[in-house]
């Protein structure tokens, strides 16, 4: 426990030290929100979005940005790099378990994801009147499960990739797909219906986030699928993970 606390403190410090990455991870979704929010027509109610404006409709997709960046990109890449450079092995020679470093990586990743989501929700509310999530419990559940599913996929990437190059080769397409199905590149109402439906079930489950934020309430099936992905990917990652 003692070792874990010290490793966590060190990892947090290293995370804060990489300012450009930190700012992107935490701030990018909010920056996009601000740019879009400054366009008056996007703040007009629109029948396309059940009478909401585009900014409200698009906010959950902006949550996906950080989740995708951290979950299937920076977190697995950091772990793959630690493995490739022998950081995990060196730790294995000490009384501290390399698992503590993995756990610390997950905690800082979660903290960054949470900070980014809070910033987005608060700025959206204060600057553009985006309502706070209508179903706080449902939203928390959708967010937690979606995050867990993506982080588990990220861990699976870190587990199966032997080198950082291999991790990159898996992480980049996964990142692009997550962003695409999350409706970040093209708002989902512009996507063919089938593609948008697939997006309901790809982590982090943007439809459940939207439903819980401004809609009726998340559908249990959407949430259940995220839970299944989280458990399946997480268990495979735990089974396949190599410390060297």
């Amino acid at each position, binding site marked *: 426990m*003692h*070792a874990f606390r*010290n*490793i966590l403190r*060190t990892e947090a*410090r*290293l995370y804060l*030290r*990489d300012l450009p990455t930190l700012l992107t991870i935490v701030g990018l979704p909010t920056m996009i929100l601000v740019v879009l929010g400054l366009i008056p027509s996007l703040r007009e109610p629109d029948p396309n979005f059940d009478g909401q404006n585009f900014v409200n409709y698009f906010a959950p997709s902006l949550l996906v940005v950080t989740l995708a960046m951290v979950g299937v990109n920076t977190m697995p890449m950091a772990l793959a790099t*630690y493995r490739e*450079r*022998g*950081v995990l*092995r*060196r730790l*294995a*020679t*000490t*009384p*501290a378990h390399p698992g503590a470093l993995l756990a610390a990586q997950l905690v800082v990743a979660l903290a960054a994801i949470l900070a980014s989501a809070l910033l987005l929700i608060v700025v959206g509310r204060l600057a553009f009147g985006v309502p706070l999530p209508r179903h706080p419990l449902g939203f928390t559940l959708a967010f937690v499960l979606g995050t867990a599913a993506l982080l588990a996929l990220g861990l699976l990437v870190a587990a199966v990739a032997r080198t950082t190059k291999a991790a990159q080769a898996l992480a980049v397409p996964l990142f692009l797909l997550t962003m695409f199905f999350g409706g970040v590149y093209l708002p989902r109402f512009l996507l063919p219906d089938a593609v948008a439906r697939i997006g309901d079930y790809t982590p982090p489950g943007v439809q459940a986030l939207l439903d819980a934020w401004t809609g009726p309430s998340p559908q249990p099936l959407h949430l259940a699928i995220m839970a299944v992905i989280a458990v399946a990917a997480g268990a495979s990652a735990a089974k396949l993970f190599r410390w060297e």
Partner: protein
Amino acid sequence: MPVIEVTHLKKRYGDLVAVDDVSFAVEAGEIFGVLGPNGAGKTTTVECVAGLRVPDGGGVSVLGLDPRRDAAQLRQRVGVQLQESQLPDRLRVAEALELYASFYRNPADPAALIDKLGLGDKRNTAYKKLSGGQKQRLSIALALVGNPEIAILDELTTGLDPQARRDTWGLIEQVRDSGVTIVLVTHFMEEAERLCDRVAVIDRGRVVALDSPAGLVSTVAPEQRIRFRPSAPVDDRLLTDLPEVSAVQRTGGQVVVTGTGDLLHAVTSVLARHQIVAADLRLEQSTLDDAFVELTGHRPAN
């Protein structure tokens, strides 16, 4: 009582037999060298001792414990410097040592260790900004920060400049003098000769010799060579009649005498008796280098 005992160790990677049959025992308080050409199985051997790899056969006992089963205990008591292991780019020297010190029950003082290893003016420098030799020194410090009873150092001074190498040797002697047993994998014969009490030479996964450096030299390559320029003609017979002499050669005006035992004394005495002065006299003794080549058929890396 040996502190490390390796008996008939065997380790395969798929079809490749990295360690075929390695046995040795390391006594408390000694500096034990492991020499051998690239790919001989040195790293694999010491990593089995450190509990990082699971042997396919044979036994390893460290401080009377099993490196796998008693891993938790041994990690407190054995410090390891891996051949290839880095740190996060942005981690600073002092942070790294303080973090690693916090893992141990009785750690060394990180600040003192930093100074001892000549990293005093780098304590706030990020890992990626250190030179290769400074990284290496940090790595040595990390292996010692837990105040281990045994330190396993794989390629201790690779990448260090000659001065830093000598400083590190001094440090290792200090560490040994404080009672730590040291296992040292090295490619530098000079390092082995200077530091090691005993040396195991490993070649293709087997121990081909195990002795003190001087013992290895005298048993494997006992030849000595004397070169000189005689002041008057010398009859070869004069020299070849000496029991110590095995051969006499001439190159230009130079006489080269090869032999064993107290060769120098025998040759100079016989010359003196015939009133011949040996100018430019030089004695060349075999070194660990010669013994290494003899044993493994490889040139040492440097």
